[in-house]
């Protein structure tokens, strides 16, 4: 692949980040009526069906859309990992942690959205108890496997902070990323509470976690990734702290 093609590919993959943000807000958030999601632990099965799935038939469309666009997170994560090289140009364990987390997070968006789409599509054919079971089961998978994304953020944050030669990403972004990753921990409480900040739609477990993840982590790193892919190859090597070939 010649250099101009490589640069074009990198730029295309980098733009998958903003594309993911816009599409997931629209499909998962707006069409999917997940801002905030229904508090299923506090609702009976019939209440969940009446207030959410039966009330908003567009949830099915939104979730199928989210199942597609969710994987753009993974594509972006791969581009990010390709930038996380050590001084010798090698990908290290932290880069692999980042990409593994990105792959699994994208998969979670796709898989869970598909499950919620199924609930929406079958709402008039299946008992409310089954709908609530699948809905709750999916949210437990979506929220309680937060370590997938925490792992990605730790890998990225640590690489940003510990790789003193690179200036692609500022150190403060690495610290913020790690802090956000740790902030996910209260998600373990989500299945057990019916109200308050740690409920599925609570101030901490929904509003703070999702907004910091999407804007303070993903938005910030998107900015620096896009800035990097428009640099010249020589400048890219310099800011990445990679040694010139002997």
């Amino acid at each position, binding site marked *: 692949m010649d250099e101009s093609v490589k640069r074009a590919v990198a730029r295309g993959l980098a733009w998958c980040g903003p594309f993911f943000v816009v599409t997931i807000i629209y499909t998962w958030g707006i069409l999917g009526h997940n801002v905030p999601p229904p508090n299923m632990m506090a609702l009976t099965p019939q209440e969940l069906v009446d207030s959410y799935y039966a009330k908003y038939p567009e949830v099915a469309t939104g979730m199928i859309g989210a199942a597609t666009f969710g994987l753009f997170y993974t594509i972006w994560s791969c581009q990010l990992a390709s930038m996380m090289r050590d001084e010798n140009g090698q990908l290290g364990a932290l880069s692999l942690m980042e990409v593994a987390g990105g792959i699994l997070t994208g998969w979670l968006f796709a898989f869970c959205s598909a499950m919620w789409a199924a609930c929406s599509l079958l709402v008039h054919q299946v008992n409310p108890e089954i709908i609530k079971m699948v809905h709750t089961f999916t949210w437990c998978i979506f929220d309680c496997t937060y370590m997938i994304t925490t792992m990605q953020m730790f890998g990225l944050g640590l690489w940003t*902070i510990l790789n003193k030669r690179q200036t692609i990403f500022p*150190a*403060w972004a690495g*610290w*913020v990323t790690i*802090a956000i990753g*740790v*902030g996910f*921990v*209260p998600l*373990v*409480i989500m299945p*057990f*509470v019916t*109200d*308050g*900040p*740690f409920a599925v739609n609570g*101030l*901490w477990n929904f509003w*703070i976690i999702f907004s910091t993840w999407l804007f303070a982590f993903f938005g910030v790193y998107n900015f620096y990734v896009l800035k990097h892919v428009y640099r010249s190859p020589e400048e890219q090597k310099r800011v990445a702290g990679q040694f010139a070939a002997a």
Partner: protein
Amino acid sequence: MDQRDALKAGLERQPGTNGIWTFVFIDMIVFSLMFLVFLSEKIRLPKIYAAGQAHLDFRIGLTNTLLLITSSLFMADAVASTRRRSVVAVRRNLLACLACGGAFCVNKLFEYHAKLSAGLSPAHNSFYSFYFFITGAHFLHVIGAMIFFIHCMRQNELQMVQPGYRRKLENVGLFWHFVDLLWIFIFPLLYLTRGA
């Protein structure tokens, strides 16, 4: 000395590196968020929070406060000892910090065990969710600091008189003072202030 040299000299006198100050600032924001959400919940559920706080033993909290404040004194002395190049004093002070941190951890674990044995888990109610979340996050910081103390103590005498070691110890010291400061907010917030 021109202005640029004076600025450089001034920055070199700044205790710790930019990294630790960045970390402390961001950590402060995260804990501030936790405290704000805690307070909003306390206003929303005054009876649950009052009942929860009544179950906490303020003597344990007070003991932990005294342990951390005392250890901060040892930490400050450890940093001062690096300037005097007194390796023995540095090690002695770090050991004292480690002992205080260890005592804090033991206290905390006993307290957690007592709560969990009484069926008061993080899922019990909003107060206990926050109690475990806030003190748990702080507890992890204490463990992290203790790992840094051990790392600093394991340096050999030659390494300990280098300027880089002093900078490293200043970073650890700043982190430890921040952990101490956090507890000074957490103790009254959880153990002392009670609503109507």
